[in-house]
């Protein structure tokens, strides 16, 4: 009897140790990346970097202000496009989830989430750049919206499903229409989880670079009109990182640090929203 017990303790101990080791390794890699980017990038982050335009090759200084603003605009428009479509689709799939249409949408959304972002970029290029012979931030927003969409659909569906059916039936039994019970009772109850999905969707596209190469294209100037080519932070990192100058490399690291920080903040906010009492 004792031997059996000892063996069980040993197995439990070994299991705990191994899973702890793996978790530690994963966390260590993340910390190494964060630490390395921070060390390389922190000294290039200063006020001019955040507030000035890029300078021509050969001059020193300058910043990525136009890229920061450009990223905000592009991501913002993408969010405006993807949010209503994604949430409404999520509602449809969650409430009418057994039919052929809902199954089809769920399947297509899963496929969409697996398509490489560069292919989505090409699609946006064919649809919105080639016909107009003009790069634009709007075409980039379209590509971003496609990238966010499956994530928003899935998280909205899960969020609405997590509202107990008995709550929905309670609303119907009170004489509310399906529309009213969904809008006034189910959706508010699912809201924290939907907002979290939205923030994770934004975090997902904030660092995307590939679809921007042939849609937003990048710009050296202040550009606020989304129908024109626009500077993007992640594109600037790409350009600076493969450029031949030491000062460019430093700016690339600083830009990367900025992006990671933005994504980090989005993730933290997403977690806070999900906490009980958050986002009331």
């Amino acid at each position, binding site marked *: 009897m004792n031997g059996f017990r000892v063996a069980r303790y040993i197995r439990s101990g070994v299991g705990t140790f191994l899973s702890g080791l793996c978790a530690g390794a994963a966390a260590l890699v993340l910390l190494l990346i964060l630490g390395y980017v921070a060390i390389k990038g922190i000294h290039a982050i200063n006020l001019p970097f955040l507030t000035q335009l890029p300078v021509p090759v050969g001059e020193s200084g300058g910043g990525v202000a136009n890229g920061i603003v450009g990223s905000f605009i592009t991501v913002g428009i993408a969010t405006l496009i993807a949010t209503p479509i994604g949430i409404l689709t999520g509602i449809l799939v969650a409430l009418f989830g057994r039919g052929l249409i809902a199954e089809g949408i769920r399947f297509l959304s899963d496929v969409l989430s697996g398509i490489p972002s560069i292919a989505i970029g090409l699609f946006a290029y064919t649809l919105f750049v080639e016909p107009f012979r003009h790069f634009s931030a709007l075409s980039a927003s379209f590509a971003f919206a496609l990238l966010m969409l499956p994530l928003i659909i899935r998280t909205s569906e899960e969020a609405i499903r997590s*509202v107990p059916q*008995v709550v929905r039936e*309670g609303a*119907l*039994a*009170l004489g509310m229409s399906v529309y009213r019970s969904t809008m006034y*009772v189910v959706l508010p109850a699912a809201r924290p989880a939907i907002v979290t999905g939205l923030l994770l969707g934004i975090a997902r596209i904030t660092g995307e670079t590939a679809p921007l190469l042939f849609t937003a294209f990048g710009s050296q100037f202040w550009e606020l009109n989304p129908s024109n080519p626009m500077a993007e932070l992640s594109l600037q990192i790409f350009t600076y990182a493969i450029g031949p100058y030491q000062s460019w490399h430093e700016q690339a690291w600083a830009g990367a640090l900025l992006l990671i920080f933005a994504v980090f903040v989005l993730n933290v906010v997403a977690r806070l929203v999900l906490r009980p009492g958050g986002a009331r």
Partner: protein
Amino acid sequence: MTTTTLATQGLGASYGSHRVLADVTLSFEPHSVTALMGPSGCGKTTLLRCFNRIHETITGARVDGSVLLDGESIYGPGVNPIGLRRRIGMVFQRPNPFPTFSIFDNVACGLPREFPKSERAAIVEKSLRAATLWEDVKDRLSKPATVLSGGQQQRLCIARAIAVEPEILLMDEPTSSLDPISTSSIEDLMTTLSERYTIVIVTHNMQQAARVSDFAAFFLGDGTGVGRLVEFSETTKMFTKPGDRRTEDYITGRFG
């Protein structure tokens, strides 16, 4: 005061190809409490859900036979289930207050939108008093309903159901998730409410049926799992002189 009558004729219900209830013919006295009893899976909850047409909101669910409200079929072509559900209220097995609504809004939200704002507060107070919850919550009406205990939440759901002044109140095992004290307060409440409403209650608990109901219907699954009505009579008669051997076996605890 309501004199609305509710009756069924040859009522059956199924989920897809799975039949759960067949051939139920019953009628309910105004201002009485009728208990639907029987073991799990005998179709009594499904029967209750046919009365306010909430059964059909589940994909594949079907009803045959008829349910008559004041002699008119509630499954007729011109009947709007939304209007019907305002006449026939329901209290569920698990307390289901709307989680993001305040206590006040939970009670008021069933009222029609055009209902004057000034009278809402009076209706809310009246309903909460009727559900014996007013004293517990009168100082925190704006708090979310989720701060209440399970028994209080169930009484809130009863207040919500009676705020719209239904003619019939359906209760699906309303005390099964509550402690004995909350149970007893809700049972007292049912007796009071039956002065104004016709109540149909599903219960597993025979003592509860004996305590609160005037009439009782006993259901049992037949050999193929289809629920059927075995016996319907006054509760006192069913518990003292059951007309069917199977009812007697169930009541005396020989099975179920």
